[in-house]
Every structure is written in structure tokens, then in C-alpha cells.
């Protein structure tokens, strides 16, 4: 997809509207999902997605293809989200019901209700992480970016991404260990 995206991007730079439309079709779901998880509601996510693509078209001339188009687009979305977050105080993000609704509406690999409950709990713990670690987890795990792509988006070294992921996993494992006894008691 990356090669195809780069070809489409090159055509869009030359003014091909059809190629730009294809790029939107390819990426809008991923960008919307990324911003939806971070912003907490559909309307804001839709606005942020529109802003992201608007800024993409504005900056298309300056795209030097040092990274893939996907990484570059995620970087723009990341900065759009940071700008938006700076302007408003983020309240509570996703509620438990939202995660449950998402799990119910989308296909998941969970085999039973207990596993699905564990996953919901895990996603809530992710939202408890500090902003840097949360961003890293979202980009690497939820958006399926590689370590280097995540590092490019966040503007940090790959080693920093590894460190943040390790810290996040430690935190999630600890939280999991804390809750397991309660479950056994229940």
C-alpha cells in the first residue's frame, strides 16, 4: 500500500485530483480511528480528520518523501491532535460503554466474554497512561506503525519509542496483576 500511496501522492502533487481522492479513500478510516480514540467523540474526530487532510493538501508541495506517505500523514494527524488538545481541556475520553460498543460492533479475535472483558479493561488502562506513552501505544499498536515509523511521527528516536513501550507494558502488566486477585475472589 505504501508504494501505491507514494505513487498516488506523486500524482496528487502534480495536480491529479483523482489520485488525491484515492489517497483519502485509502487513509481516512485509519486517521479517523486514530483521532477518534484520542479525542473521545465522533464529531471532534471527524473535524480533526478534515483538518488533517486539509493540512495535508497544503503541505503536499513540501513533502520530500523522506518517510512513507502513511507516516507523514500520521505525523500531520498527531500535530493536529496536539493543537486541538492545547486549545481545549480534554475531559474524559472514551467511556467503558464506547469500548464495549466498539467491540460489539467490530470483528475481534476474542473468543469469549471473559477475554473481551479483559481487553476492555486493558484499553481503559491504556488511557490512564501519560500522554507520551499513550501516544506511543496508539501509534504502534492501534495504528500498526513500526517502531521507526512511530519514532518519525513523534519526532523521537526509535530507542525512545522502545523505552516508552516497555514502560507502558510494565504498567499494564502491573495493573493486570492487581486486578486478577479481585477477579478470583469474585
Amino acid at each position, binding site marked *: 500500500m505504501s508504494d501505491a500511496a507514494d505513487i498516488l501522492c506523486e500524482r*496528487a*502533487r*502534480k*495536480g491529479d*485530483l483523482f489520485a*488525491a*481522492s484515492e489517497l*483519502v*479513500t485509502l487513509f*481516512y*478510516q485509519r486517521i*479517523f*480511528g486514530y483521532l*477518534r*480514540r484520542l479525542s473521545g467523540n*465522533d464529531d471532534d*474526530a*471527524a473535524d480533526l*480528520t*478534515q483538518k488533517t*487532510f*486539509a493540512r495535508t*493538501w*497544503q503541505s*503536499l*508541495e513540501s513533502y520530500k518523501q523522506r518517510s512513507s506517505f502513511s507516516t507523514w500523514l500520521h505525523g500531520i494527524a498527531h500535530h493536529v491532535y496536539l493543537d486541538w488538545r492545547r486549545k481545549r481541556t480534554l475531559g474524559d475520553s472514551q467511556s467503558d460503554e464506547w*469500548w464495549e460498543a*466498539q*467491540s460489539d*460492533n*467490530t470483528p*475481534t*479475535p476474542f473468543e469469549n466474554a471473559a477475554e473481551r472483558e*479483559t*481487553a476492555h479493561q*486493558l*484499553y481503559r488502562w*491504556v488511557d490512564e497512561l501519560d500522554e507520551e506513552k499513550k501516544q506511543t*501505544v496508539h501509534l504502534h*499498536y*492501534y495504528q*500498526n506503525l513500526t517502531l521507526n515509523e512511530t519514532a518519525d511521527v513523534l519526532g523521537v528516536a526509535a530507542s525512545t519509542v522502545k523505552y516508552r513501550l516497555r514502560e507502558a*507494558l510494565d504498567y*499494564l*502488566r502491573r495493573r*493486570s496483576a492487581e486486578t486478577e486477585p479481585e477477579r478470583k475472589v469474585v
Partner: protein
Amino acid sequence: MNDTTIEKLLFHAPKPLASPDLLKRLQADIVLPNVKPAAKAREGQNPLRRWFPALGFAVFMLSCAIMVAVQASWSTKLKTENTTLRATTADLPKLREQHTALEQAQAEHDELVQLQKDNAELHSLQAEVAQLRDLPAEIQRLQNENQRLATAANSAHKSGGDNFFDDAAQQLADAKARAERIQCVNNMKQVGLAFRIWAGDHRDKFPTSLVVMSNELSTPKILVCPSDSARQQQYASLRFGEFQDNMTSYVLTVQPDDESANPPCIIAKCPIHHNYLLSDGSVQQVNLKNPAYREVQKDGRWYLQAAEPGSTWNDAINPPAK
């Protein structure tokens, strides 16, 4: 939960779905900045840049045409020159014959000049031979004269030449003797000065040894008479550290308290030249043939006393009993 489980769950997190309206809105919002249609873009370009390939080819062709024209011009010019030269060289055999004739004439001329030179040299050689023919007679005359002069010189030498050389040798020996005597006097004066300096530093007492006053003497050489050839060879070049009193040519007659003696007594004498060093530092020369002084001993000291006129040196030393 272990890390693998956590990562698996995170990788398979639910993906929020956007509404289809969003896609339409996003596609409608696409604005590609700085997009120019191809024709417009071409209009915006520099015309030179647009026509550069055609212009480049045209310039290349033009330069080729110019080069061809220049080469054709050169070729025509060379052909013309060639034709002219061919026309000129039509008379070449005749010119060659003329050139050969000229070369022969030049060679004959050179040969003639050479012959003239040889003739002049022959004349000069003939004159030289004529001069050489007279030379043996001249040589014979010179040999005869030389023999006559040699004979005359031999006879002159036999008659009085020895006396002349003997006189010259005698005069030379006399001059040398006088020089040595004067040098001896000079030595004794320096020794006398050293005696007086030493006495000045030692309560007017004279030293009874020459070695003790070595600091006042410039060199041991002045302690050896220049006519004393044996001592000159052995001791004159020694240093004061090696010099002994018995190595001097002079006879010391000094007494420890001679400085205050009046009249001045003899403190040293040269047995070769009969020069006397007196305690006042003066040096008296005594002529042996006609001595003006004679040695006299009084109270253990030696003095010089005026000798009687007409007495000899032996008389002066041992005066006849009255």
C-alpha cells in the same frame, strides 16, 4: 497477563468506523494548491527554456555549417597556392643546373683562395729558413764567448776570491757575536730588574736563587746566554717548574743583603761575554782586550774597580803585585 497477551490484545484493538459522509466531505474538500494545468504551466515557463532543445540543435548545425565553410575556404586557398607553386616549379631543372654551376664556381673560388694562402705561407717559410741558416754561426760565436768568459772567471777566482768570501763570513760572525752580546746584556738587565722587584717585596733582601724569583721573571729563556749554545738547546725552552739554578749561564755572586751595598756590588756575571750585573740593576760590559774594570773582592762581595790603562784582562783579574 503476560506481555504477549497484552500486545496481542493491543494489536487487535477495535477500529472505530467513520461515517460515509466523512469520506464525501473529505473528497469534496480536496484543494491541491499550486496546481497548474499542463498548458498553463508551459505558458509560465521561460520561452528560452521551452525552445532550448530546438535552439541547441540549431546552434550546433550552424556551428557545423560555419566550420565546413571555413574548411572549404582553406581548401580553396591551398589549391590556389598549389597551382601557383606548380607553375613556379616548371623552370626547376634549369634552376638546378644554374645552382650546380654556381656551386662549382664557388668551389673553384674557394680553392683559389686556399692556394693564395698556401703561397703566402710558403714565402714566409722560405724567409724563416733563410734566417735559420745563419743561426749555427751565431751559436758557434756565442759558445766561444761563453768559454772565454768562463776562463776569465776561473782565473779571477783563483787570484783573490777566497779572501773576499772569508772576509764576508768573518763580518757575519762578528755581527752575530755583537747581537748575542747585546741580547746577553738585555737578559741581565731583565734579571737585575727582577732582583730589585723581589727585594722590594722582601725587605730589601736579594734572593740567592734565581728560581725563587720566577714570578718576577718573564721566561727562563732570559737566564740562558744566547751564546751558550749547549744550554740554549737544553734549557731555553723549559718552563719555570722544570728549571734549576744550575741550568743558568750566569754565575751568581749575590749576597742576601746586597741591595743596600754601596758602591754597587756584582750580583751576577756572564762568563762568556764578561757582562756584569750590579746590585743597582745596571750592566757593565768589559772589553777583554782593553778592560776598563777589573773584579775585586771585599768582605765576601765582588766589585768592579777601574783598571789601570794598558792592562790586560788577566792583569785586571790578577793585578800585578806592587
